[in-house]
């Protein structure tokens, strides 16, 4: 069952110009944050959206949860189009699709007690109030490991560590029993030795509630650990997508291969070979023509500069956007 489908999604942000710049040049420039991406996510699976900073993965997460509206394209949730929902429909959508943010130090209202923050969705959607609300919140706090729940209920965010805050944020996202959760780099700001704890919690909740995750990360190793499917993004586009096992055993796109060989490994014996990659990420305001990766690709041909490779099947459950695959 397809839980989420994204079709030809685009998000262009107009570039802020200074007053003088606006006088001297009429042309509006755009940051092409997300450029025509399409992918599907199956119910009950984890879709790992992987890429470096600036690739558009965070923007994609915001688009899926309708925190921002797409410039073009469609989003389907449970096969119903949700791209332009407003008002009550949008509010109902919010009950089913939630998001966990990257920064646990900033995603909780510093002036709101944890109990209130976690229970606020219940109040907003008029699901429960008063004592019943408190009971549900306490149960949720226990479930995410914030015990004794009573203490955490009355605590303010500043009294909690980063890991605890993130668990509170997870509690808040889960309290409405959503069906799809977008996790935007949920562990990158947590201490290394505590990350697996959060991942374990997320997997436990996924099994219990039959959730679907879109797991956004720059860390391929984490993506490998938690995902069923992986989508690799570069400069606003998906360059490779497929089942995790396929991507790691048989990467096709040069960028994916470069990413894989760039990942550090806790083994001093392994000395990595040089990357087949040069230069730095191009600007998303003036992206390169044709294949956006071609300026950095060691295998680029003339064709790569002229025409953009489509995302096409290169194996079972495996697509890549490269002329040479």
């Amino acid at each position, binding site marked *: 069952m397809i839980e989420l489908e994204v079709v030809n999604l685009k998000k262009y942000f107009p570039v802020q110009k200074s007053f003088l710049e606006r006088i001297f040049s009429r042309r509006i420039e755009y940051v092409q944050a997300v450029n025509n991406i399409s992918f599907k996510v199956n119910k009950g699976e984890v879709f790992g959206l992987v890429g470096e900073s600036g690739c558009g993965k965070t923007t994609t997460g915001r688009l899926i*949860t309708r*925190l921002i509206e797409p410039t073009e394209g469609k989003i389907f949730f449970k096969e119903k189009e949700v791209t332009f929902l407003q008002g009550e429909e*949008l*509010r109902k959508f*919010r*009950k089913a699709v*939630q*998001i966990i*943010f990257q*920064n646990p130090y*900033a*995603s*909780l*209202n*510093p*002036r*709101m007690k944890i109990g209130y923050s976690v229970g*606020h*969705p219940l109040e*907003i*959607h008029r699901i429960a109030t008063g004592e019943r609300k408190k009971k549900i919140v306490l149960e949720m706090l226990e479930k995410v490991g914030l015990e004794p729940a009573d203490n955490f209920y009355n605590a303010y965010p500043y009294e909690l560590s980063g890991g605890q805050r993130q668990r509170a*944020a997870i509690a*808040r*996202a889960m309290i*409405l029993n959503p069906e799809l959760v977008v996790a935007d780099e949920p562990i990158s700001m947590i201490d290394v030795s505590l990350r697996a704890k959060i991942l374990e919690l997320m997997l436990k909740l996924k099994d219990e509630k039959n959730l679907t995750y879109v797991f956004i990360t720059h860390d391929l190793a984490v993506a490998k650990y938690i995902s069923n499917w992986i989508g690799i993004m570069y400069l606003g586009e998906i360059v490779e997508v497929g089942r995790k096992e396929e991507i790691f055993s048989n990467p096709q796109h040069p960028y994916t291969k470069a990413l894989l060989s760039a990942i550090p490994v806790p083994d001093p014996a392994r000395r990595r070979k040089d990357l087949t990659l040069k230069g730095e990420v191009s600007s998303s305001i003036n992206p390169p023509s044709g294949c956006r990766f071609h300026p950095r690709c060691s295998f680029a041909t003339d064709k790569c500069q002229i025409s953009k490779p489509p995302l096409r099947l290169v194996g079972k459950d495996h697509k890549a956007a490269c002329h040479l695959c």
Partner: protein
Amino acid sequence: MTEIKYSASRFIASKLKSICPRTVIEYFALIGFIIILSIILMAIFAPLIAPYNPIKKVGELLESPNSKFILGTDGLGRDILSRIIFGARTAICVTLLAVSISLSCGVLLGLVSGYVGGKTDNIFSLVMDAVYSFPGLILAIVLAAMLGPGIVNTAIAIAVIYTPTYFRIVRGLVLSLKESLFVEAARAIGAKDRTIVFKYIFPNVLSSIPIVLSLNAADAVLTLAALSFLGLGLPAPTPDWGFDLKAGHAYLASKIWWPSTFPGLMIVLLTLGFSLFGEGLNEIMNPELRK
């Protein structure tokens, strides 16, 4: 039982320790607070503390300070001490009223304007900037003259000058808080705009208000005094420090210093009280690196 008592007293001690002033500037807050509190108490209990009726002639004209009239009498034979004490009522009343009005209007408009943005924000900002760019006292004089005497009118005249200050500060904070992650999180859980403004943004703006409030109060005391000095504040014979200062001013040439000095000192004291409190509060809430 003793264990509970022991831990309770330890708890209180640690709480006291954490609010105990640590630097000179933090002592300011304490001193300022004491001054303000004393004057407020003076205002509340005026009928009990004041020795005489402040608006009746109770002694000879311009008696110098003596055992019967501790601060002397003024040009109409009224006891200066009693007038000072009752004057505290006027000062506190008008100041607090003015500050409340400007605070509620400024903060509310700042919240709405900052959050809504667009043309609404442009219009409000323009109006507020216009008012802000006026020399405060001149505007107060014009308004007081237009509205006429009286506690409420004077308070309004003063309030108008300070509303833009609250507006600017709150609006600035709202603009930055609007982009913060927890506000985005609030939207993600489905909160309506109204909820976001009052439950998520406003509480985070709150911490910046007391300092502005205090410093505004200090300025308001001076503005009120100035208005009264110019005869635009409250009608005689209401005990009012600014008015008495003006009235006593005429006698200074004849070396009769007490009718103007004491009201003047009170104005300074209350202003100082609010200023010290504001500065000290600023230091407590935004501490500098200490050596």
